[in-house]
């Protein structure tokens, strides 16, 4: 199964990744080979089989809905590229309505 350069660019956009033409050619070839290998799954009949997304039958335990102070706010802010008081300054990521 061959995956086209166009498809590579389309998926790269969905992934917010960027490939130049040379890189795109390499990854198209690699993905094609890997997807080709995945074909072996199609030989199995799974019509009646339920999917598994989680292997344990354990139920998610509930806890009391109590407020607990998060003590590491300063430490988290240390990783921010730029701060204004206690706020992280980020590039504009929403359009004005």
């Amino acid at each position, binding site marked *: 199964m061959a995956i086209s350069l166009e498809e590579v660019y389309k998926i790269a956009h969905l992934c*917010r990744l960027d490939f130049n033409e040379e890189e795109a050619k390499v990854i198209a070839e690699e993905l094609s080979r*890997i997807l080709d290998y995945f074909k072996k799954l199609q030989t199995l009949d*799974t019509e009646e089989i339920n*999917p598994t997304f989680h*292997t*344990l039958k354990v139920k998610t*335990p509930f806890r009391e809905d109590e407020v607990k102070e998060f003590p590491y706010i300063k430490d988290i802010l240390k990783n921010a590229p730029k701060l204004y008081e206690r706020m992280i300054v980020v590039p504009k990521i929403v359009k004005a309505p």
Partner: protein
Amino acid sequence: MTTFDFKDLTILSALKLLKEKKISSRELVEESLKQIKKIDPLVKAFLYVEEERALEAASKADELIQKGEEKKLLGIPISIKDNICIKGLATTCASKILQNFISPYDATVIEKLKAEGAVFIGKTNLDEFAMGSSTENSAFFPTHNPWDLERVPGGSSGGSAAAVASRMGLGSLGSDTGGSIRQPAAFCGVVGMKPTYGLVSRFGLVAFASSLDQIGPFGLTVEDTAYLLQIIAGYDPKDSTSAPVDIPDFLKFIKENEKTSYKIGLPKEYFEGEIDAEMTKIILEIIEKLKSRHHIKEISLPHTEYAVATYYIIAPSEAFSNLARYDGVKYGFRVDTKNLIEMYKKSRALGFGKEVKRRIMLGAYSLSAGYYDAYYLKASKVRTLILQDFLEAFKEVDLILAPVTPTPPFKIGEKIFDPLQMYLSDIFTIPVNLAGLPGISVPIGLTSNNLPVAIQVIGPHFKDEHVLSLAYQIEKEVNMKFIPPILKN
């Protein structure tokens, strides 16, 4: 100062010496650091060494020991894979995108180790975001196998396995998504365990594939591994996938069951095909010896051959989602451009390495409209079949024995340019993650090239103590010390 060989020390024997005041934590930690200075320029297991902090922690531990304080790891030097957060230290995941990230809090497993007095000597190398089987995908440098520097230590927890094998610290924690603890343990001649999914909290472990990731210990012996697992296991309200189950006393269990006979299955699919002949011979020899105590029979796990394809759809799909958070906005590497989408794309394109990008792309493809049913959903259904194979098998047998890898450690550069070949090297470890089972790798011998060979014990969900018990019996039967030649000169 008494005379003992540092190479022979384990966590448990060091604790005894500490208690008897025959050695100090300071001496233990200094010895680890000396070993790092001597050997790590060649092995390159560590991304960061925390010399000052470690020595300070060791001195504090010595004070507490003097006061008669008893903690389970008081003064013991330990290394940690660099995708597990230690407050105040870098957590890079061996990725440029997190190069300057400083952990704001401790992972739950780190909190537990700290509470028991462990001394952290440094963070170990890995394949970027734990994606790989050789540690060659680290954005910084590859790690070398201490048994043969031209060979890989395995991956992704290659740094942790190489560190323990080289006696740079007495134990380590890694993470295992498709074999990332067991395969490097096998390649480096140490013990490495992937516990049952849910047994150990993953809070503070950087997520790769959340339905598969599990933290686990590395040790020089099965006892040390059981001892470390005891400390890190248990339900954690901060990880909703951690299971509220009772944790048995692992060390007590394996001692009490030193001679217990188990029903053991050998899955025929794990002994067919392209498996190294010399390695198989060593594995079969030990199985032959085990027959005197255990009932061993052939079993079948018929969907084994589909595991690699299943895994390399599911894990990248989950990674695609988990790694979406690295967008250059609030933290991490950013390339500033005028256009926002360009900023995302350039930051991620330069911040992530080749294998990570390949997997993000594979995941996006498998989940995208028109392909979801044929790839992601199909793989999730085949995962059910793989899980059912194991559940069926465990109706007949208590435990399963299998190889860990199809070959002994391969050469650096041998598979890195052929991703599919690299993926196929995980064939015997991946099914265990897909099914959420516990598995351990125990060294059992050396090839004629002096490379470690290991065997894998696999057990039913939450029968981790049984897995450890058989591993302990095997270790006794093998009765060998695994000391890489690099330590002898």
